[in-house]
């Protein structure tokens, strides 16, 4: 007798069932809730009329996948030979900052600052590789990453010029992630010419930024960065359209001061988008503790934003940081309406993209990694190089990270909204081409917890009359 593929939860005194096959949240009576929770086998006699009605409508199915295999597995060669989308070039491993939480810092295993720079030959061959492997792509992109990439500005300029002169017909986009200290008028003019999108890493007001983001001599960087950006934006107001801020939030600090900073410093943030993320826990040597104050402030900010979403607070509370945090939730709300096909016999949890296809990270030495977030010290993450091309078997291994937790995935209620990729199962210094089941399981537990939280948020928003169509990003309807 199969068990219903559902997840039960109660929230604010109401009883809910999340139906995995239908990808739908059902509000049910207490009696039905207890019945389903205690007797999850479908072939149970004496079901209530409410449950029978749901079964009749196709809910509460016992259907579960029989095999875990990523649907793109058979397409890996085709995609990587013809449909590469974007490169992320590590133009240098050097940096003029010494941020305490930087992935190159001592807090992490997977990278270290060196004086190594990418030379033109590697950069050119990387761009040629992208051109050669993107026959089917309508658009291609090149990102510049460091260290601090602007330390290698001349190389970046040469790359943009080369790609622009040698690609016609496709959209070519350029992106760069920088600490903002080295931006100057010459660089900005060049970036405007190529419509380069620039992401500035800025963590918050002075006391936050200066705590983690410091120069090699320990001096804070807030004034250096913000004054530089203010001057540039005053002279080139159109540059703001190309500007994003990336805020790495340290959960050992407060959150309200960061939010206030973003909402009130119009000169810096007006017209620019802000992405925030919590300091990465992956590859970290020591655990990351969230302070009670941080959690309280975060939850309060979330509460205020939800009140704004349901029209109980004014637009003043339309928080830039929270808006980005809620994108994921909105995606789930959209998908619950769209994904109605039941799970197939063969499935894989959502999350992994074909490693390298969307954002191939190429190191200064010309080695391939799935993206800039993964460890360069991990053998399992090294998926090829400029000389040999892609190692397809390794790409497929990473794509099918769900196979290391096959049984758990088959029964998991978050399979359609997982979001995990192979990075979470990488030890950071793997030498045996292996992913860690233990690390994956740890991440799985977190995902299930977070997904239930999101389901609850959705229930709260729906109950309070949230209208999905009203959710807008940059002036456009999210849909």
């Amino acid at each position: 007798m199969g068990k219903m593929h559902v997840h039960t939860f109660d929230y604010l005194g109401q009883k809910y069932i999340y139906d995995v096959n239908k990808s739908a949240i059902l509000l049910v009576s207490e009696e039905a809730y207890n019945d389903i929770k205690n007797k999850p086998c479908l072939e149970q006699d004496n079901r209530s009329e409410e449950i029978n009605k749901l079964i009749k409508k196709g809910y509460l199915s016992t259907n579960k996948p029989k095999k875990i295999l990523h649907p793109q597995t058979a397409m890996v060669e085709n995609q990587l030979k013809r449909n590469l989308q974007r490169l992320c070039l590590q133009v240098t491993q050097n940096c003029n900052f010494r941020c305490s939480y930087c992935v190159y810092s001592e807090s992490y295993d997977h990278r270290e600052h060196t004086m190594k720079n990418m030379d033109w030959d590697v950069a050119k061959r990387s761009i040629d590789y992208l051109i050669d492997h993107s026959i089917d792509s309508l658009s291609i992109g090149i990102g510049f990453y460091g260290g601090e990439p602007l330390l290698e500005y001349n190389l970046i300029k040469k790359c943009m010029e080369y790609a622009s002169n040698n690609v016609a017909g496709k959209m070519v986009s350029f992106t760069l992630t920088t600490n903002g200290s080295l931006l100057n008028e010459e660089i900005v003019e060049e970036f405007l010419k190529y419509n380069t999108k620039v992401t500035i890493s800025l963590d918050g007001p002075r006391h936050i930024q200066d705590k983690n983001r410091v120069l090699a001599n320990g001096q804070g960087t807030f004034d250096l960065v913000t004054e530089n950006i203010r001057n540039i934006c005053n002279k080139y107001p159109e540059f703001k359209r190309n500007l994003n801020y990336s805020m790495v939030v340290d959960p050992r600090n407060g959150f309200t001061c960061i939010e206030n900073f973003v909402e009130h410093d119009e000169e810096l943030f007006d017209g620019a988008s802000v992405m925030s993320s919590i300091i990465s826990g992956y590859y970290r040597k020591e655990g990351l503790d969230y302070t009670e104050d941080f959690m309280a402030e975060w939850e309060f900010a979330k509460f205020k934003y939800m009140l704004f979403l349901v029209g109980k607070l004014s637009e003043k509370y339309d928080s830039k940081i929270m808006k980005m945090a809620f994108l994921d939730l909105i995606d789930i709300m959209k998908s619950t309406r769209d994904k109605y096909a039941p799970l197939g016999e063969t499935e894989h949890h959502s999350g992994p993209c074909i490693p390298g296809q969307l954002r191939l990270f190429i190191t200064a030495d010309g080695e391939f990694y799935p993206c800039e977030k993964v460890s360069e010290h991990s053998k399992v993450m090294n998926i090829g190089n400029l000389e040999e091309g892609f190692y397809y078997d390794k790409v497929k291994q990473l794509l099918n990270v769900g196979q290391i937790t096959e049984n758990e995935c088959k029964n998991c209620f978050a399979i359609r909204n997982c979001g995990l990729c192979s990075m979470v199962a990488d030890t950071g210094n793997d030498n045996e081409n292996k992913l860690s089941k233990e690390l994956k399981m740890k991440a799985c537990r977190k995902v299930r917890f977070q997904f239930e939280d999101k389901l609850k948020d959705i229930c709260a928003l729906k109950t309070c009359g949230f209208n999905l169509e009203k959710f807008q990003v940059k002036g456009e309807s999210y849909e």
Partner: protein
Amino acid sequence: MSKNEKLLIYPFNVEVMPLLRSKKFHEKYEDIVLCSLKGSGFNGKDASVADDGEFIGITIREDFDQCIDECSTILVIESQHININEDELKKRIEIVRNKGKQIIDLRASNENRSEVHKCNSVEEAYNIFGNVKINITKDVTYELSYGELLQCEGLVDITTPVIGVVGTGKNTNKFLTQLSILQELEGLGYKVSWIGSNKMCELIGGHSFPQFMFEDGITDTEKVLLFNRYVKNLEKSENADVILIGVPGGIMPCSKNIIGDFGILSYKVFQGVNPDYLLLSVFYDEYRESFFNEIKMHVRYKFGCNLNTVNICNRRIDWEEVRVLNQNVIPYYTIDSQNISDFIESMKNNTDIELVNIMRKDESRLIVNNIINCLADDEPNLVF
């Protein structure tokens, strides 16, 4: 142009592959140079890289100036690129013109509308649409004042068997499928009238899709009736054994964002002409059996005809790119033809629709056999 003259095809892309794979085209144009836009990824590779089919034997180049000096005629084709620099293209065409080379421009254009057709009666409309030579280098306009008359007469019967080829979108190998069917039928000695889904069909004796179907100022009802008359006149003037019609675009939207024309053109076409055999070309995906039954019903109730065959194209929609681009274009990636054959094999006993892979060698023979079996008189004893 004589057979010995060199033809440059520019900007080379997958659109032109059906022609390069066609004997008819090679009979007409023997010496061909292919030049792609810079950075397309084609440079130095055999043309077959574009559709991942069998080896062609022509290497793609990017040195446009050199290419044009070597050729006497340039065939400018529709570009699949979304970021094409029109000014740059015009400049290049102008250079070619100044060098005294012949230009065949197959791109859709709103310029050079130099032909105006006026008609005030159904008879005139009959004559115009029956005999008009659609000039592939120019667009034509129509000034019509016969609408009511036409509607009074309604639809006329097309007695010659009609084969329809449609797709679920652009780039589903419809043109290659039509060409393959055409050549196979002609090889068997049948005479075929062909209305092609792509302007390129004019180069090998087909009629490109009548422009009036895309014009403003003609009502949809008139378009249906005119298309009906257009095919009738083709039937009368060419007296072929079979009429092959390829419909541009798709029969339905691919998604909320990739809408095409919602399948409106194909709806109008099949209100005017009911096909006796219909082949639908679809992008590859991991379809379940139910998909084919559903699409069969969709066709039956939308067009009022049977769906006989489904061609699985060796391209798959790139849904990730759909999300990134957010434009009304269909990003796709090409997949190995063997994947399609494997999929067809796995579906063999699960659907009663014939599934084919036009990229497979000799597949056109299979399709044409099906067509002949379907269209052949299977009740010879029946008098009435």
